[in-house]
Structure formats: C-alpha cells, structure tokens
C-alpha cells in the first residue's frame, strides 16, 4: 500500500457560475460552485480544480469569492486556473483559500514567471497547465506542440521539452491536456501522457477526453499519470467519483476509498 492515484473533478466557472451544465438530481442550483464542490467532496474527490473562464478581467474578483466560499466548507486541496498572470493574481487566490494555482498561457509568454512564482510561493503550489496537440503525421514518430487560445494557436514549442523546462523552473505539478481529445470523450491521449510522465520528476495530471470510467484507469495504467482529471462524466451524474474509484481499484490501481 502507498500513495493513492488521485481523481480530480474540474469545474469551469464563468463569472461565478459553473458552466457546461452540471446535473445532479439532488442539487438545487446546478450552477452554484459551492454546492457542486460539496457534492464532489462527499463523493470522495481527492482534489478539486476550478478553471476560471470569465472573459473580462473585471469580473475576476467574483472567482476570489467563489474560492473563499468553497475553501471555508470543503477541506480538500483546491487548484484554481485561468487568468493567472501575475504574482498578485497568485497571492489573491492563495489568500482566498486555493492551495495551488495553475499557470497556463502566462507561462508560454513569459516562462520566467513560473520561476518567479515558485521562488515566491514554493513549487508545491505552482501547477503548470500544458495544452498540447499532436503535430506529427501518420507513421512519423509522435510529436506534440504547445497550443494557446483554446488550442487554436500553435507556438512551435515541443510539449515534452516544455514540460521538462517548466519543472526545471520550479513547477511542482503538470496539468497536461490533450487538445485533440478534449471534449471528444474518446479517452486520454495515452502516448502524450506517458511521454510527459516519463520525462518529468514531478506528478502529472492527465486531462482531456475522458468519456468512461475505463479511460480514467487507462490514464494511470498506460499513461502512467499520477492523477486524472475529468469534467463531463461527473457533471452529468453519469458516474459518481466513488464509482470511478471502484473501477480503478478493480483494475488494480491504489485509490482512496
């Protein structure tokens, strides 16, 4: 027995409300992040990730209040991503009760920001989010690049090299999303996941493409991920976190039950 593989539900929050529809029979307000967070906590989520997709930076303050409310009622680790661009953004989220922040685009435009953030707050709370897309053709050795702007803009940066560099700068964890698989429900990009997991010394969270419970198990067994993140399979109450953990346990994965 030892360290458990983690299951992390992800909530997209727009201006203080959870979007992409969450359907639980016994939840009164399906858009309330606090109510949903409590539900996942009760089901046994190992951590929670909130992604702030609010377009206007003026409305970011709303996210701070969401984090404050969740953190005063749910006692598991909370990660907040989306719009984290400055040391002040990080401090605000940590003071509100977040345990980690996920830095995405800001790292691409200014890699030193990751180093600065890790030096200031400690690597343990700095997650670097990597959005990667396969750029190699059929039959070529696989290669993935970093994309920004929701997967629309290529950067020419190799994803595996980038992960190594982010860890060298001080990232304590990598949140790896396959932009090819995101929203497809066809499973993680296992080759990408495995390539990054084997390249870095820090934990890696696999994300993008989960459509059923076996996908979660495959992320760990074949992708070698330390944690798996999913949104829609939990939001629509197709599966509870507990079911996901039982399936993973059946497949020989150590989980917290």
């Amino acid at each position, binding site marked *: *027995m*030892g*360290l*458990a*593989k*983690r299951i992390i539900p992800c909530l997209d929050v727009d201006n203080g409300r959870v979007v992409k529809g969450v359907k639980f029979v016994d939840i009164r307000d399906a858009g309330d992040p606090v109510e949903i967070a409590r539900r996942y*906590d009760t089901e046994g989520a*190992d951590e929670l990730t909130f992604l702030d997709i609010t377009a206007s930076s003026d409305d970011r303050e709303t996210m701070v209040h969401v984090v404050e409310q969740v*953190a*005063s*009622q749910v*006692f*598991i*680790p909370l990660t907040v991503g989306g719009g984290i661009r400055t040391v002040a953004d990080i401090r605000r989220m*940590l*003071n*509100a*009760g*977040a*345990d980690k922040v996920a830095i995405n685009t800001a790292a691409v435009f200014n890699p030193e920001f990751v180093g600065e953030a890790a030096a200031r*707050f*400690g*690597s*343990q*709370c700095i997650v670097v989010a990597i959005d990667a897309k396969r750029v190699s053709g059929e039959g070529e050795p696989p290669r993935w690049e970093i994309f920004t702007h929701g997967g629309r803009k290529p950067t020419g940066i190799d994803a595996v090299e980038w992960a190594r560099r982010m860890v060298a700068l001080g990232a*304590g*964890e990598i949140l790896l999303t396959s932009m090819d698989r995101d929203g497809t429900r066809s499973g993680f990009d296992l080759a990408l996941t495995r390539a990054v997991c084997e390249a870095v*010394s*820090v*934990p*890696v969270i696999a994300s993008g493409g989960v459509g059923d419970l076996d996908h979660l198990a495959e992320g760990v067994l074949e992708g070698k991920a*330390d*944690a798996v993140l999913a949104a829609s399979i939990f939001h629509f109450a197709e599966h509870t976190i507990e079911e996901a953990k039982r399936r993973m346990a059946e497949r020989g994965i150590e989980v*917290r039950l």
Partner: protein
Amino acid sequence: MSSVAVIDYGMGNLRSVSKALEHMAPAGTRVVVTDSAIRILAADRVVFPGVGAARDCMHEIRARGLEDVIRQAARLKPFLGICMGMQVLLEHSEENGGTPCLGVLPGAVRYFGERLSDPRSGERLKIPHMGWNQVRQTRPHPLWSGIAQDTRFYFVHSYYVDPADAALSAASTDYGLRFTAAVARDNLFAVQFHPEKSQQAGLQLLANFLAWDGTD
C-alpha cells in the same frame, strides 16, 4: 472562552488552517491568525503551520522575532506543527543547501532524493510526494482518537523529518522509504501531512487537538 493562535509568519495560506479549525471548534472558541508574541503566548493552544522552503521559513520566523516564542509555546501548551511547521522544529534541514532550524526536537530533515523508487515494483516515484497516503499510527495518542489505523491523509512535501530519538515518532508512512509522518512529545504534536486538507480524518484530528489538554 478558549483560544487558538495560528502562527502567521508570512509563509503561505493560513486561511485553510484557520477555516478548518473554526469549522471544528466548539462554540466560544476563538481562532486568531497572528504574528504577535503576546497573542501567541496568551493563547490556550497554538498551531504552527507553514508551506514553502525551509530557509525562507526560518528567515521569516527570525525577521518577526518569533524563534523563542515558538520554542516557548512548544514547551508550554498544546502545540500542533503542520508540514513545514513540523520540519523547522528539528535541528537542521538539508533543504536550500543546509538550513539551521529551531532545534525544539533532536534530529534532521532529509531530502527524498532524486532517484526515489518503489521497493516492490521498482517504479520511479515522483517528488514532491503529493496526494493521499496511509498513516500508520506507531503509538496511541489522544490526537488519533476516532481515526482508524492506516487512514489516508493529504501530503505535499519533498523533505521528511528524521528524529534522532525513535521514541518521538507517533506515525509512519511509506513512500520509497518509511518516514516519520507524525511526532509527539508531551504537549507537542506535529504532522507532515495537512489535516486541514484531509477531509473527515483531518478534521477529526483538528477536533482532537482542540479538545486535547496537552498530556499523553
């Protein structure tokens, strides 16, 4: 009215610690987050949390003149160290090329190492040790009340404490090697994991601390 001081020395997020304490505190308990020596020494109980690097922690503690205050509190009243707040209680840490610490407890803080692997599977283990791992209670203690043997708690750390006196250990956890996950001595209890982030089990431990009179 009972009071709990959470020592604030500028290292990270104390809100989750204070919120979790407030969540579990009996009515009439006051939880204060403070760097004031007077308020720390006046409190009935003291919680010493902390995240980040050992050198920064020690720097901030010294900058606030809290070294002796912490040593005194750790001798006099129910005292709970959490994570970095546990590590800096020892004499020395390997972190940041070697950092002298408070020396409340004999022993050192060691790095897991670059090449940590699972002794059974041979698989490489990631650093930091991050996530939910099992805590094996190595002795009975009031703070373990209502918490089952091998319960999982949330950890995030790259260094672990290695007390010079094995009798100090109150729990162990396996991650490539067997390390000390909790220490206990008289009125002092300290844990490597984060009870404030460990859901039911963590809240139970905090409730036990809030009810503890500081004796074994």
